């Protein structure tokens, strides 16, 4: 790891001030991607701005028909939150299956969303649930937020402060994970909000998380696993690596979507 200066602001506003002042600074949230990346010298920020003491970035609350999750909420906090479990159980389930227990005690939703790893779990939930990513400057719809591999709509100096999830009538998540890294080989989040059906796929796309319109259309007729019978995802634009080729991943998209719908409908 290369040397850096360390800063520990007490609020998101102070953090933004530091971020604007320090050249080549990086935000440190849970650190479970950034620190390993720095150890490998793939990242070498000259300053780290740790959000760990920003109390205004913590906490999970229910606000009307939404659940608002502070960016520094850990995966364990989301998984164990009575509010999330009651309002969007599929989201609590997703959080409870990220990494391992130790990772979940440190990793944060804000860090995961900002990093937009193509195999991370949260981007699928954000996209399928139609979440709004709130920063210190503006609100960004999930549809416009995830723009490519590790790329997001975040501008220089922008910090995610919270993620707002609409409470949907049904939601479920299924992932076929890589047993070593515990990232998704393929993960599918499905959500039904009135007549609006969304299916978001992570782990599979060459450009990161994406929606699967054919499955959404099929589930519109009836929101049940059976509606997906015979539906196959195209292997075009799907990742291929030593863990799974594109055809296998495409096949898994169908299987995981069915499992996610089954979970969402309690079948």
């Amino acid at each position, binding site marked *: *790891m290369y*040397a*850096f200066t360390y800063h520990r602001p007490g609020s998101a506003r102070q953090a933004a001030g530091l971020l604007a002042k320090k050249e080549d600074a990086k935000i440190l949230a849970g650190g*479970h991607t950034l620190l390993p990346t720095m150890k490998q010298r793939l990242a070498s920020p000259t300053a780290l701005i740790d959000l760990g003491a920003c109390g*205004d970035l913590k*906490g999970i609350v229910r606000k009307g028909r939404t659940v608002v999750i502070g960016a520094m909420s850990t995966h*364990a906090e989301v998984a164990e939150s009575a509010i999330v479990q009651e309002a969007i159980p599929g989201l609590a389930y997703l959080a409870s299956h990220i990494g391992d227990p*130790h990772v979940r005690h*440190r990793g944060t939703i804000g860090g995961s969303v900002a990093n937009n790893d193509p195999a991370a779990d949260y981007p699928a939930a954000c996209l399928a649930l139609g979440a709004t990513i709130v920063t210190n400057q503006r609100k960004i719809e999930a549809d416009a937020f995830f723009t490519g591999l590790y790329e997001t709509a975040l501008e220089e100096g922008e910090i995610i402060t919270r993620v707002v999830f609409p409470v949907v009538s049904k939601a479920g998540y299924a992932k076929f994970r890589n047993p070593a890294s515990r990232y998704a080989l393929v993960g599918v989040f499905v959500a039904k909000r009135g007549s609006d059906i969304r299916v978001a796929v992570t782990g599979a796309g060459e450009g990161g998380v994406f929606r699967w319109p054919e499955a959404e259309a099929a589930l519109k007729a009836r929101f049940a696993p059976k509606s997906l019978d015979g539906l196959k995802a195209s292997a075009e634009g799907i990742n291929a690596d030593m863990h799974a080729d594109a055809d296998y991943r495409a096949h898994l998209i169908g299987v995981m979507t069915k499992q996610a719908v089954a979970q969402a409908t309690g079948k």
Partner: protein
Amino acid sequence: MATVSMSVNGKAVTGSIDPRTLLVQFLRDDLRLTGTHVGCDTSQCGACVVHVDGKAVKACTVLAVSLEGASVTTIEGLAVNGMLHPMQEAFREHHGLQCGFCTPGMIMSAVDIVNRRGNDLDEKVIREDLDGNICRCTGYHNIVKAVAAGAEAMGGQSMDQKEPPRQAAE
């Protein structure tokens, strides 16, 4: 250099450290608490697991400087007055180790599982929650037995009472 103060195994410690110092380096190199091991150094193997504010974390993936005011428990902090902690005793009794390299992390994770899930643990829960700890000797069988027995022996007593978790601000 940066200054950091925290409590380690109930004792107040202050260090003047390079901000790059990982918690596991601070524990091993500065405090000479070498029971916490470095295995993979990539947050996968779990040999470096310690408790921070009552929660198990991988000490190879936490900056020591970020733990100002925190309460840390390492494997050295479990035994009381020379008496092994029930979980340590269970690992000995059930031969939950061979080379022993992963054992400190296994035991810290096991105590964390009991703190989160209570004393009556079935095999499935234990195996799932030991997901972040890798052992290359035992095949896990005796480790799982040891964790179940240790959990029972802990009898509803959280052994981390001296480090109440900090409340997340709402």
